[in-house]
């Protein structure tokens, strides 16, 4: 047996258990989801479902009232709003952390990182009950002290969207601050010194030195965060749409939408079609971003 064939045999035998696991538990269910998406499987047709072709996809993409297109729009809006706020706030915080002579910076860093260290779903539930609850939530206690009317923070679409954004920022900013903070420290000081000699203002220095210098460093993390924001489920589901304690807001991202169609209204075929559409979009994104990475 020659060396190449021996290497191949070795590689496949060592990776076989892992690949088999992935094939059976990851790939096969995805293919099966694709199959379910072409059937009318739902709570009445759990076992005796029929093949209905692309009906479910038509329902999702062509019937506006079904809500998928709205959810898609909300998801895009959610991703853009969250990413812009995250980058701007994290940049300001990281810049302030790097001000010369700030002795307590490491204390602040540790405290600011705290939300990242907490299990996400626990934090979200604490926000829901501790902060947003309309009777004994802290926010309404403060409102009362200020002599203002209590607010139902998760009660309607717009305010729930803002509340969810706040919680998401609270969860995600520590990571972004850490990344930008690290990137800022890697920028060579001498660039600033010569810019200062030329009389550049803070804004000019930021625009022409800092941002171009840190952009390639933070790009992969920003990409990953954009993906996770787009795929966000926990924040919106746990805050507004838990089974049995819906708050009245009706905002859906595509993931909570797919989940609701599957496990609450039990329309498995339709929900699987949504899943495949989401998967398709994610694949498209990864192709585009990977393509751009290779160009660079």
């Amino acid at each position, binding site marked *: 047996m020659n060396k190449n064939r021996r290497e191949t045999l070795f590689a496949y035998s060592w990776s076989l258990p892992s690949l088999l696991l992935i094939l059976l538990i990851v790939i096969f269910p995805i293919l099966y989801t694709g199959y379910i998406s072409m059937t009318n499987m739902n709570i009445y047709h759990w076992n005796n479902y029929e093949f209905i072709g692309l009906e479910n996809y038509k329902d999702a993409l062509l019937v506006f009232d079904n809500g998928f297109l709205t959810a898609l729009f909300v998801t895009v809006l959610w991703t853009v709003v969250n990413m812009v706020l995250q980058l701007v706030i994290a940049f300001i915080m990281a810049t*302030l952390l790097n001000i010369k002579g700030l002795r307590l910076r490491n204390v602040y860093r540790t405290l600011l990182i705290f939300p990242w260290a907490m299990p996400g779903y626990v934090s979200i539930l604490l926000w829901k009950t501790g902060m947003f609850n309309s009777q004994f939530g802290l926010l309404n206690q403060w409102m009362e002290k200020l002599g203002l009317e209590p607010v139902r923070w998760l009660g309607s679409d717009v305010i729930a969207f803002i509340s969810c954004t706040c919680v998401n920022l609270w969860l995600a900013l520590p990571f972004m601050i850490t990344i930008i903070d690290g990137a800022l420290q890697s920028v060579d000081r001498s660039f600033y010194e010569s810019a200062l000699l030329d009389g550049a203002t803070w804004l000019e220095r930021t625009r022409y030195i800092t941002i171009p210098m840190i952009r390639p460093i933070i790009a992969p993390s920003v990409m990953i965060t954009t993906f996770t924001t787009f795929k966000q489920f926990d924040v919106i589901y746990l805050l507004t749409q838990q089974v049995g304690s819906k708050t009245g807001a009706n905002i859906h991202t595509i993931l909570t939408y797919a989940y609701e169609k599957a496990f609450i209204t039990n329309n498995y075929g339709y929900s699987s079609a949504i899943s495949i559409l989401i998967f398709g979009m994610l694949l498209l994104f990864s192709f585009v971003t990977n393509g751009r990475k290779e160009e660079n």
Partner: protein
Amino acid sequence: MSKKAKHTLLLVVVNLFFIVVCFFVLVPVLYAFSVSLNAENSLLGSDFSFLPRHMTLRNYRAVFTEKPVLLWLKNSLILAVATLVISLGTGIPAAYAFSRKRFPGRNAILKLLILLYAFPSLLSMTALYKLLSPMGLINTRTGLIIVYTGTMAVFALWNMKGYFDTIPVEIEEAAMIDGATQLEQVTKIVLPLAKPTIAVTAMMVLVYVWNEYIFAINFMTGSDTYTLAAGLYSLQATEMSGSWPIFSAASLIVSLPILIVFFALQKNMTEGLTSGGVKG
């Protein structure tokens, strides 16, 4: 005003700013902590203060005596250890093979794995349910272990492969010349060098199982089969207002191990995530 005085003023303002920001960042957790220690049932009163006048550990005791938390803990631990053993047991040899060997199909499989990494397992929940239920694996630990290992398998392979790539292959070649077998090269040379990535991967698997609630509440039906995450979820969903102090105590207990792990491994975690194998 002199330049120095200006800078001092700036520092005062920035310090004040950070003190206020840190307070607001910590408020939800501080509030829960304070509620969990408060002996008076003054939640609805407007005279709430962050330092309870009468402290009590009653809520913490109640978590352990009135709720099956220890049972949930046991369930979580069993799932976590089983998932960990399977993911690392299959992931390490695979990651090694993909890092060191060049063979037909390697690039295609690696590309496929990146794509799979983008797929949230939540989306194939229906299919998984439909596949596991005729095998009698719904409402069993085995079922959840299968789901969790599948979810972590792609991550484990990619993350460790990325680290193996950074270990110079020359060390192994030297050992091979000295007559070490392939297995000896891996166990005696590569594994000790790969400890950081194995630790980070193991931690990520444990944290994932510890925090996963959505599969747990859908695939497990009885509260005695719940994991900690599913149990905590059920505590808040069923008895919203009544048990808020107990819920906050339980939340903090469940978070504590994760907090300890995070701050102990903070450096590794941030480095492992930002410079590690999985990108995009």
